[in-house]
């Protein structure tokens, strides 16, 4: 009897997805089969891969050599606890999103549906291979498969010029990042040219490196993975690419693909490099905090719902990277238990973000399908017409806002606990600065809650801002089921943190050499010391439910119990129209006022005599102007100069080769 390890299952599923990708392309003339069969089968694969991940978390690491690739350079695969954790994340989020896609993609134009089916499954396979790769070669191949397939997914509607532009920007930054990663692996190899196995991660783990080269490798990795994750200032592609992509794709890219960058960063920093330095952590912490704050500020002023979520993804990545920096600081300082705490927080937050951001993105997809509008100014009051979507999205919004007992709270809270424990550090300077960092994280979380109030309130509450919204009709069952899956993920991850942390701990153990100390019991979560702080989500949930129930009973039965329907008091305004509501721009106004120096605001104020006045305020990223526009201008200038060589006259071209010939002849005879 052949015993199959989790790793065997994992790459079998990769193969299965590749076959599905091919099948999807072949079924071009049968669009119903693509949505009815290919995508559900893909979702089964996703469920299976998360089961494989759960198995992999409890089993020891396994290796496998896949004899494909170049001669003498086979692909090395490995499944250890870290890969397994990210496989759970990938499978869990991808299952819900893929099921959702079954409903969402019905009625799509058939040619692009077949292509979408191919790229979608190729994308899943690529991400899984990134997690399984155990050598630089396989990793880069998988990384590029992931980048290219997601590029084609982003440009699904490629007849729109803006989408083509967004796709190009994404591809450009992805490639700049990939070059950096290639250099990083080159450095990690330590110049061992003669050694044929130097490209494997096993070799890199044991390579001796001087501190200088180790730092170079870390910085290259931070740049390369930062470009994929959306670390400021490499974030510019995110707010462009996410609105351009179809909603399930945005959900996957934001929920899962950004996490592969986190995975890579953890893999290189904690696994492949073996002498971590404290200042790396400080750098990552600073960049992460800047990213978090920058992302949330811009999220607050957006008026396009998917763009808002994209900026919010940047914020969450910032928080994750800040946690990474903190873990690195602790680890380099020899505080294993605290490093484990920060690491747990960051892994937990990655998992949470996959679920709630996936949920929110598919929620916007449903709204988009039902109303055709992405701009918040054209939505409103949808809770009456799309009740399922509204309630499920509410769970996602509450999670991302960090409200107990949902999952966002757990990871935010763990991270803040880790920050508050820093006085144990041996560097007094860091001890002084890190409370400020903790305050920044708290500020970002608070602003995130503000963003979510805006997001949810403007879309679902109040009155419809357009008359057509009344006809918005909801969702098919696959869509609902996908959203229910993601929402229950949010709830369960929030209510059972102790158990989840137990699952994560092999990955944390692998990275930091310790697992998080939970001083509480199965019911309460108490990092490090139960006397300091503890959190019992089940108790909290029970209390909330009991209080709700009691209130309901008291109001309904004991107080007077009658239901009276009447017009509400109209505050002295007998005419209440939808235009009197707070708009998305209005909601973001305070944040825009405070942080105006970060952004360039373009306003169009209406004419006083306009019968139908429209206000438009657009806040642009100033970093684009400061950093990217000069580079773009320089590139243009250089290519203009190079273009002068092209005369169109054959004689001139002949002179070029003639001069080269003469030069080479002179050069040879010297």
């Amino acid at each position, binding site marked *: 009897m052949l015993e199959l390890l989790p790793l065997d299952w994992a790459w079998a599923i990769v193969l299965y997805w590749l076959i599905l990708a091919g099948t999807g392309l072949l079924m071009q003339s049968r669009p119903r089969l693509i949505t009815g069969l290919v995508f559900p089968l893909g979702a089964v694969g996703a469920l299976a891969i998360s089961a494989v991940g759960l198995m992999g978390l409890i089993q020891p690491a396994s290796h496998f050599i896949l004899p494909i690739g170049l001669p003498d350079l086979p692909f090395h695969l490995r499944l250890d606890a870290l890969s397994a954790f990210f496989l759970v994340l990938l499978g869990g989020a991808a299952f819900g999103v893929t099921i959702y896609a079954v409903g969402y993609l019905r009625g799509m134009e058939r040619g692009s549906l077949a292509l979408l089916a191919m790229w979608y499954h190729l994308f899943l396979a690529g991400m899984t291979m990134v997690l399984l790769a155990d050598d630089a070669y396989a990793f880069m191949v998988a990384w590029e498969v992931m980048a290219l397939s997601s590029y084609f997914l982003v440009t699904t509607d490629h007849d729109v010029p803006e989408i083509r532009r967004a796709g190009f920007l994404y591809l450009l930054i992805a490639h700049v990042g990939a070059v950096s990663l290639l250099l990083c692996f080159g450095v990690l190899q330590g110049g061992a040219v003669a050694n044929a196995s130097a490209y494997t991660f096993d070799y890199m783990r044991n390579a001796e490196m001087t501190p200088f080269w180790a730092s170079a490798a870390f910085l290259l990795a931070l740049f390369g993975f930062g470009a994929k994750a959306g670390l400021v200032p490499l974030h510019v592609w995110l707010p462009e690419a996410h609105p351009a992509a179809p909603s399930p794709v945005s959900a996957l890219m934001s929920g899962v693909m950004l996490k592969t960058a986190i995975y890579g960063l953890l893999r290189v920093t904690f696994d492949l490099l073996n002498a971590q330095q404290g200042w790396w952590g400080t750098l990552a912490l600073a960049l992460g905090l800047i990213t978090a704050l920058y992302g949330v500020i811009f999220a607050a002023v957006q008026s396009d719902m998917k763009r808002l979520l994209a900026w919010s993804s940047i914020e969450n990545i910032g928080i994750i990277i800040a946690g990474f920096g903190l873990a690195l600081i602790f680890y380099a300082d020899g505080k294993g238990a605290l490093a484990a705490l920060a690491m747990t927080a960051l892994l937990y937050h990655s998992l949470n973000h996959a679920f709630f951001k996936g949920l929110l993105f598919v929620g916007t997809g449903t709204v988009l399908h039902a109303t055709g509008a992405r701009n918040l100014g054209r939505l409103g009051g949808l809770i009456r017409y799309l009740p399922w979507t509204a309630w499920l999205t509410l769970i996602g919004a509450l999670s991302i806002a960090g409200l107990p007992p949902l999952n966002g709270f757990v990871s935010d809270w763990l991270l803040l606990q880790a920050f508050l424990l820093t006085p144990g550090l041996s560097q007094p300077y860091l001890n002084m600065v890190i409370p400020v960092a903790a305050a920044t994280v708290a500020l970002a979380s608070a602003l995130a809650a503000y963003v979510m109030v805006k997001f949810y309130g403007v879309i679902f509450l109040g009155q419809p801002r357009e008359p057509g919204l009344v006809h918005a009709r909801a969702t098919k069952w696959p869509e609902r089921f996908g959203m229910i899956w993601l929402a229950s993920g949010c709830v369960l991850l929030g209510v059972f943190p102790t158990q989840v942390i137990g699952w994560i701990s092999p990955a944390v153990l692998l990275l930091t050499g310790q697992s998080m100390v939970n001083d509480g019991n199965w019911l309460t979560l108490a990092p490090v010391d139960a006397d300091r702080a503890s959190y019992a989500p089940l108790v909290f949930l029970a209390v909330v439910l009991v209080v709700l129930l009691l209130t309901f009973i008291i109001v309904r039965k004991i107080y007077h119990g009658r239901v009276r329907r009447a017009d509400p008091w109209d505050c002295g305004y007998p005419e209440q129209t939808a235009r009197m509501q707070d708009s998305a721009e209005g909601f973001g106004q305070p944040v825009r006022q405070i942080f105006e120096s970060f952004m360039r605001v373009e306003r169009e104020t209406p004419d006083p005599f306009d019968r139908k006045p429209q206000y438009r305020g657009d806040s642009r990223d100033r970093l684009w102007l400061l950093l990217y526009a000069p580079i773009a201008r320089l590139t243009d200038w250089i290519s203009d100069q190079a273009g002068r060589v092209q005369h*169109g006259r*054959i*004689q001139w071209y*002949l002179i070029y080769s*003639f001069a080269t010939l003469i030069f080479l002849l002179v050069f040879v*005879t010297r």
Partner: protein
Amino acid sequence: MSLTYHLQIVNLLAALLLLISFAMLSQRRIVGLVTLFAWQGAALATSTAIVAWSTGQHHLYYSAALTLVLKVIAMPWFFYRLIKKLDVDRDVETMINIPTTMLIGIALVIFAFNLALPISQMAGTVMRSTLGIAMATVLLAFLMMITRSKAIPQVIGFLAMENGLFFAATSATYGMPLVVEMGVALDVLVGVFVLSIFFFQIRETFDSLDLKHMEKLKER
């Protein structure tokens, strides 16, 4: 004794080759250019045959025959017909005036001789002193391609360059292996056919064979 006698003839033919190259630089009419090209081929074929006879390198006879058939008979005949058909036998205006071209040519010859000096000392052939002439022929043909603005003279310049290379190969190493030479000859033949098809296409598109019209093709 006979070797030096043959060598003198080869040197004479080499000098003729160089002279024809200069003549081609100064020739204004296309028909004259083709005639000169035929004469250059004839000189080349003769010198190759003499080298073959004097050194006993039999494969050079084939090279000489190939040159004779292709470059003295077939291609000039082909070009005469082409010129008649395309009706382009007019004075060719050059990009740089002819005296200046000649002066540049002289500078190139000096450069080529300077260049060939160390190489010819290494070569072990009887006619190594002609290597400088061979190189000068290549460079002069290149110069002709640069200075002419019509398509046919450029192709002739290209073929003259090939002549120079052939001569260089003969003088430095008694020619390339026969297979290579056959291949090169075939390439030249096919090249001429393809280019003549281009001539018709260019004329159809631009109503002229003047290559300055092709400037329009560049981007922006």
